[in-house]
């Protein structure tokens, strides 16, 4: 009996040890402040960004033999946010990630995974000077600190297929797409009799971020630049939100957009005549599609230079697992200086979130007129609100949108009212 008890105790002890190991952290990880030395960084797997990342790292390493940077693509996963969240918990996050999503920041802060940039002497001032105080303010966390440097934006616009528009008898160079009625008329024409399969094909799936590419940009435009929430309250349960919801529900009710997920890029595959996307897509569509771009529509039309849109920006953060944080901060400033921001624009076509974008790189925009309107649009963008439980908020918003707008199972007015309540309670938790 005694031996059996010993055995049971041993198994129990082993189980407990495993439990403690699983449940508790291994300690350490509080990297020293303002230390220099080698660091590791991650960038996205977008081909153009990889090219830029490698070149920037090589340029830095040439001049900093004692502070070598090793750069690699974010490890594969279903989304980079999940991979980064897991890396924070495991304690093996890199020093910098050049692909932060503003919606994920509050969660990473809660995990204790990020270093406030205000810890660096010139942290806050650098962020505000580079992006402009007004833009930078959107990226400030609720404790008033910056945990992210607003790096680049991809202001979304309506891309349209010129060939399809021409075939449908529409003006391919100056299409009338600025009001909802114009847009609907064009959508019906371009899908009529043997035309495009769909007028536009936003993903009708329930990932939390999909509203960033259907409802949200149009709401930002219609409301003159309002975010989804303001001061802890939902903004969208108003006539502007109603107009946008009704616009999209008409698109779905008339069969102008698919209610079923399309496997692939419907615009690149020439199944859809339009798409809502940012300038990163230019490199993808390239010469495959004869495309043009216009600002997102509003109910009764607005001059192009007054239209706001969704920024779809990416940010860079310093992670708390980083030991040589001073090098991380110095490299971040190096990678976002005027030259390297210019190289980013040149290589990827994405817009560095700089206050002086269109003037500093004027010659680039003269040489690449296709990007000019995106640069102009970049001055009027709104991002996802920096709130607690942002992902849960967007998920609830998405569930209701699908039910009401896409599948028409609830009046849009009722959904907006319900969603305003849900959103407020989500972010208050």
């Amino acid at each position, binding site marked *: 009996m005694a*031996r059996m008890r010993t055995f049971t105790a041993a198994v129990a002890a082993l189980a407990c040890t495993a439990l403690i190991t699983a449940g508790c952290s291994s300690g350490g*990880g509080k990297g020293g402040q303002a230390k220099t030395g080698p660091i590791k960084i991650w960038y996205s797997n977008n081909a153009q960004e990889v090219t830029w990342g490698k070149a920037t790292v090589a340029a830095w390493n040439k001049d900093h033999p004692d502070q070598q940077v090793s750069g690699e693509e974010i490890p594969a996963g279903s989304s980079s946010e999940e991979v980064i969240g*897991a890396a924070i918990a495991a304690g093996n996050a890199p020093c910098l990630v050049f692909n932060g999503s503003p919606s994920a920041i509050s969660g990473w802060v*809660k*995990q204790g995974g990020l270093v406030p940039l205000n810890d660096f002497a010139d942290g806050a001032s650098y962020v505000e000077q580079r992006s402009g105080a007004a833009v930078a303010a959107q990226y400030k966390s609720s404790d008033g600190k910056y945990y992210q440097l607003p790096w680049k934006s991809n202001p979304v616009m309506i891309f349209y297929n010129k060939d399809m528009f021409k075939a449908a008898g529409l003006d391919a160079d100056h299409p009338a797409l600025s009001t909802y009625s114009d847009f609907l008329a064009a959508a019906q024409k371009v899908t009529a009799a043997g035309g495009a399969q769909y007028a536009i094909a936003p993903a*009708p799936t329930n990932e939390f971020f999909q509203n960033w590419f259907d409802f949200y940009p149009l709401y930002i435009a219609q409301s003159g630049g309002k975010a989804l929430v303001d001061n802890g309250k939902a903004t969208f349960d108003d006539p502007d939100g109603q107009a946008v919801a009704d616009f999209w529900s008409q698109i779905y009710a008339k069969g102008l957009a698919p209610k079923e*997920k399309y496997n692939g890029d419907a615009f690149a595959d020439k199944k859809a005549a339009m798409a809502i996307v940012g300038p990163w897509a230019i490199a993808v569509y390239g010469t495959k599609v004869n495309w043009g771009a216009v600002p997102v529509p509003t109910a009764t039309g607005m001059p192009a230079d007054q239209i706001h849109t969704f920024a779809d920006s990416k940010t860079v953060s310093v992670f708390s697992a980083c030991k040589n944080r001073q090098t991380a901060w110095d490299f971040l400033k190096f990678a976002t200086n005027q030259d390297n921001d210019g190289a980013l624009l040149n290589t990827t076509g994405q817009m560095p979130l700089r206050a002086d974008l269109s003037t500093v790189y004027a010659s680039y925009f003269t040489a690449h007129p296709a990007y000019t309107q995106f640069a102009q649009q970049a001055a009027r963008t709104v991002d996802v609100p920096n709130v607690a439980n942002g992902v849960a908020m967007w*998920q609830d918003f998405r569930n209701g949108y699908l039910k009401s707008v896409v599948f028409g199972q609830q009046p849009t007015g009722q959904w907006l009212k319900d969603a305003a309540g849900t959103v407020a309670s989500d972010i208050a938790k």
Partner: protein
Amino acid sequence: MSRAPRRGPRSKTFVGLYLVAPYAVFLAVVYAVPIIQGVRISLLDYVYAAPGADVPQPFVGLKNYRKALSDPQLRRSFLNILEFLAINVPLTVVLGLTLAAVLAKLSRLKTFFRSAFFVPFVTASIAVIGVWYFLFSQSGFINHALGGWAPNPSWLVNSRLAMVVIALEVTWKQLGFYVLLYLAGVLLIPDSLYEAASIDGAGVVRQFRAITVPAVRNVTILVTTLALIVGANLFTEPYLLTGGGGPNGASMSPALLIYQNGVEQGKPGVGAAIGMLLTLFVLLVAGAGRGVQWLVQRGEERSPGRDREVSPA
């Protein structure tokens, strides 16, 4: 009470304990620890904290359970899973056993058919889902074949049909594995029983009902239990085939909700609470299934008919 007579059984016990020890450790590490950890997380306002970070994780009692239960999607997901199991489990048992019985009798192409049924099981889910998407999407093969008879809305966006398509896909994909389990059982049945039944004038169907079905009863219990557990953990198909449990939550599953809450939305406590509820649900459904089987078996034993006379037991 001398010591000598006790030595034998006692040393046998020790040998036995040492022999089961590796498996006991395996069970503890792979199953017990995660379950205990799951219960613990479900009672905390848990955060996947960075090592060394000072992050409070207060005990919140049943708050996570209340939060999970107040989500209308959760109720929907459990009802969806019941619908899924109601199609998947009986279909798996009927098709698995029938195919195994036929395979056992085949004299030619046996290996070919066995492998053919097994191929979908070992093929990556994403590839199988790609094929089913090609078949059942709006502009897919099935709708083309049906022409004017195609359902509207189409299969994957039809709230009545989405779960049915998923249940059929999963049944088809898993079937090869269950056929193998049944085949092992069917091949153990002595041929003499079939010969005797044949002499008594029993046809193929009668032989199947009177000999094969009762003889593999234990395999049926195993297949039912496995299909229930695997089915209740349904994730990949609603995630990929119906765009995240669509349309409008009609194919939402508890496992997908665990992922959304626990991983995407950074609410591991709520995710763990749903996990515990799912475990209870599986235990209840499996227990109910076992109860029904027990009642059927008892009923048969009390009223021995001709079926019983020829069964191998």
